Structures are given as structure tokens and as C-alpha cells.
């Protein structure tokens, strides 16, 4: 379980957010500029909150009172970025293997094959990221984050850079991931439709605050025109 209670000032914008993720996929929902990405960046350790506490199960990742701030490379929090951020100088196979190498985990071919099959990226292993379509790139990015054996997987608008046909292509993979991979996820999006398919609980952010949190029924009241 991820528990977050943080404050962060970014210029004129102030984030003051507290929530706990219960189910397997927690949606961080809100319009652009509501602070969703900043929150996941603080969970991943890319930026540090000004005050507060972030804990994953019984591991404290950040606690300003206790002066704890685990560096991002020791958090074991997987992150799928909006633009994939695959390493352009490495093949798909080397991208997938990067997290395992950096975390000094033993090679696990069965696990690797399972993830590769789950995401259907076996035919791409020898390619460079520059030769992938947007959908393939995001699938590889998900696989790369999973293969480091994260305790939590953050997905920041993983479908935002894709057209609607590609979105429909990838969503089923993510749903399978939720049902089979057993890694809790935080899924950032401003699309109620997307979240209805994947999320189990919803945290609705607005202007850097949690407006509501609860089940998927929250999305039914989402004022679509405002988003």
C-alpha cells in the first residue's frame, strides 16, 4: 500500500496532497495542471517534497520529519513516462535488461519471457527504439519498468502520445498486466474512459489538492467538459 502525505511549492503553484492507495490500480485523475505528474515524480524520487511523508508498505521512502529521502535508484519504483524515454543507443533487449543490470538482480529468463509475451514485444528485441511505433515504444517502456521487479509501478499518461487506434491497441495489455503481474500501479490520466477500463480506485486532483477519492463511480460525475 502506498501512502502519500506531502506538500510542495512549485513557483506559484502549491501541492498539498494526502491519499492512500488501496486497490491494485490507483488512478490519479485530474485536468492538466492539477499536479498529477508532480505527485508521481515525488513518489519516484525525481523531486523532493518540501514537507511530508511517502511510504510504500512498511518502507519509508520520504519523511521530512525523520530526514529520510531514499534516492530514486534505491526506491525500486518503476516509472513509465509519457514519452517512453527508451535509451536510444541500446537495443530493445538491452533496454529491457537495463533495470535488472542496474539493480544487480540475477538473470531470470522465465520471467523475462513471461513479460515479453505478456506485452507481445518478442519480435522487437533486436530493434533500436528509433525504429519503433509509438505503441510498441510504450509497451517496451512498460516491460522495461516491470523487469526491474518494482514494488510499485507508476504510469504517467502512458497513452497520451498515441492516437486512439493505438490506445485501443495498448489498453488490453495494461489490463492483462493488472490482472497477471501483481504489481500495484498508480495510473495518471485525465481520460475517464481510459481509467474506467484499468483503475480500481480513484484519487481526483484539482489545483494541487485531492478533491475526492473513492471508487470508479467518481468518474461518472467527472465533469467532462472541464477536462
Amino acid at each position, binding site marked *: 500500500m502506498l501512502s502519500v502525505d506531502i506538500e510542495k511549492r512549485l513557483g506559484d503553484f502549491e501541492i498539498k496532497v494526502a491519499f492512500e492507495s488501496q486497490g491494485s490500480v490507483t488512478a490519479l485523475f485530474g485536468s492538466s495542471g492539477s499536479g498529477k505528474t508532480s505527485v508521481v515524480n515525488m513518489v519516484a524520487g525525481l523531486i523532493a517534497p518540501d514537507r511530508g511523508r511517502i511510504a510504500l508498505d512498511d518502507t519509508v521512502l520520504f519523511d521530512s520529519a525523520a530526514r529520510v529521502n531514499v534516492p530514486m535508484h534505491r526506491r525500486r*519504483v518503476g516509472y513509465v513516462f509519457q514519452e517512453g524515454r527508451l535509451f536510444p543507443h541500446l537495443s530493445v533487449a538491452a533496454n529491457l535488461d537495463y533495470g535488472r543490470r542496474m539493480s544487480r538482480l540475477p538473470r531470470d529468463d522465465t520471467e523475462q519471457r513471461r513479460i515479453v509475451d505478456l506485452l507481445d514485444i518478442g519480435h522487437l528485441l533486436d530493434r533500436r527504439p528509433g525504429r519503433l511505433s509509438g505503441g510498441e515504444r510504450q509497451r517496451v517502456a512498460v516491460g522495461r519498468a516491470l523487469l526491474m521487479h518494482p514494488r510499485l509501478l507508476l504510469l504517467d499518461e502512458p497513452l497520451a502520445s498515441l492516437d486512439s487506434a493505438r490506445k485501443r491497441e495498448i489498453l488490453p495489455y495494461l489490463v492483462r498486466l493488472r490482472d497477471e503481474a501483481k504489481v500495484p500501479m498508480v495510473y495518471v490520466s485525465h481520460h475517464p474512459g481510459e481509467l474506467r477500463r484499468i483503475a480500481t480506485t480513484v484519487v481526483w486532483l484539482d489545483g494541487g489538492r485531492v478533491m475526492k477519492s473513492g471508487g470508479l463511480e467518481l468518474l461518472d460525475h467527472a465533469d467532462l467538459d472541464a477536462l
Partner: protein
Amino acid sequence: MFDLTPDEWIAIHLSIRIAIVATVVALPFGIAIAWLLARKDFWGKSLLDGIVHLPLVLPPVVTGYLLLITFGRRGPIGAFLAENFGIVFSFRWTGAALACGVMAFPLLVRAIRLSFEAIDRRLEDAAGTLGASPLRAFFTVTFPLALPGVIAGMVLCFAKALGEFGATITFVSNIPGETQTISAAIYTLTQVPGGDAAAFRLVVVAIVISLAALVASEWFARRAGMRYHGD
């Protein structure tokens, strides 16, 4: 007419050795300073930037003279190194390599810094979330991506070191077999009657070496670039 005399071979050999040693020794310092200038904000950054670039704008004779009074036998650093480590620069080929390295350093740092600045830092964040410490992220992501720029910087540094004249001759003089590089040899030959043919031979050699270095760097950079952007 193209039989090089033993003395000319010595000058050529010495020049190449000096340029290679200057480039190889300058490289780690160049990478470290380029990274600092590209990535860090600290007190005195513009001063450091200025000092690194000084040899580019100062008259080479001034740089050579400054080296002489600091790294010469009686200079503070020169005396310290000679007493404690037995490293002597004055009137030795090592001094020529030092002078060439200092003169070429700004070109090396500039090229590497530009290539560091061109790298998407978000890739380093991605490496961090995948468990790479900042040092490992540097060696597995930043440095490989900057490699074409590093190679370009090394070739510029090598070429500048090969052609350096003013600072070298001021610091370590023009001693055949010890500090007389191709440039210094050409200069000497143009000062003596009947030296034209020998000077011309060395000029051709200088052109060939420089062109070969350029072609080699293009080839390396293209290979490195291909590794990143295609298959």
C-alpha cells in the same frame, strides 16, 4: 625528393607522441570540467569557464611564459613535482605535451560540453528510476550518448596539439630530438638557407596527419551516431 631524413622522422614521431599524450591526459580532466560546466551550478562557475578558455584568447607566448614560471624548474608547481615525483617539464618532451594539452584544452572542453548539453536529461532520470546510481547512469547513458562529441573533441585537441607552436617554443624551447615538433622544425628550416625542400616535406606530412585524423573522427562519429539512431 620524398625521402625523409632521420631528423625529420624524429620530429614527426615526437609530434605525434606529444599530441597523443596531450590528448589522452587532457581527456579525463576535459570530461570532468565539461560535465561540471554543462550540468552543475556552483559559485565561481563563470570564473572556471573563463580560465579554461584563456589559452584560446591569450597570445600563445603568454601561456607559454606562464607555464614556464609555474611548471619550470624553479616554478612552484614544477619544483614540487620534480622533488616529490621526479616529473620534470622544462626542456623535455613532457613539457611540450603539457603546453600542447593546455592550449588544446578549451577546444576539447567546448566540444564535450556541447554534447553533454544536447543530451535529454530525462533519460538520466529514467536510468535512475531503473536503479542506476548517478555514476552508473553517467557511464551507461550520458557518456555513450555523448561519445560522438567526445571523439570530435579529441580530434580537435589532437590537431591543435599537433600544430601548437608559440606556447611550446616559449616553455620548452626548440631542441631537436627532445622538444622539436613538426611545427618547430618547419620554422627552423625556413630560417636556414636551403631548408625549403625539407620544410616542404614536413608541410606535406603535417597535412597528411591532420587529414587522416579528420577522416578517422568522421568515421568514428558516424559509427557512433549509427549505433544510436538506426541499426
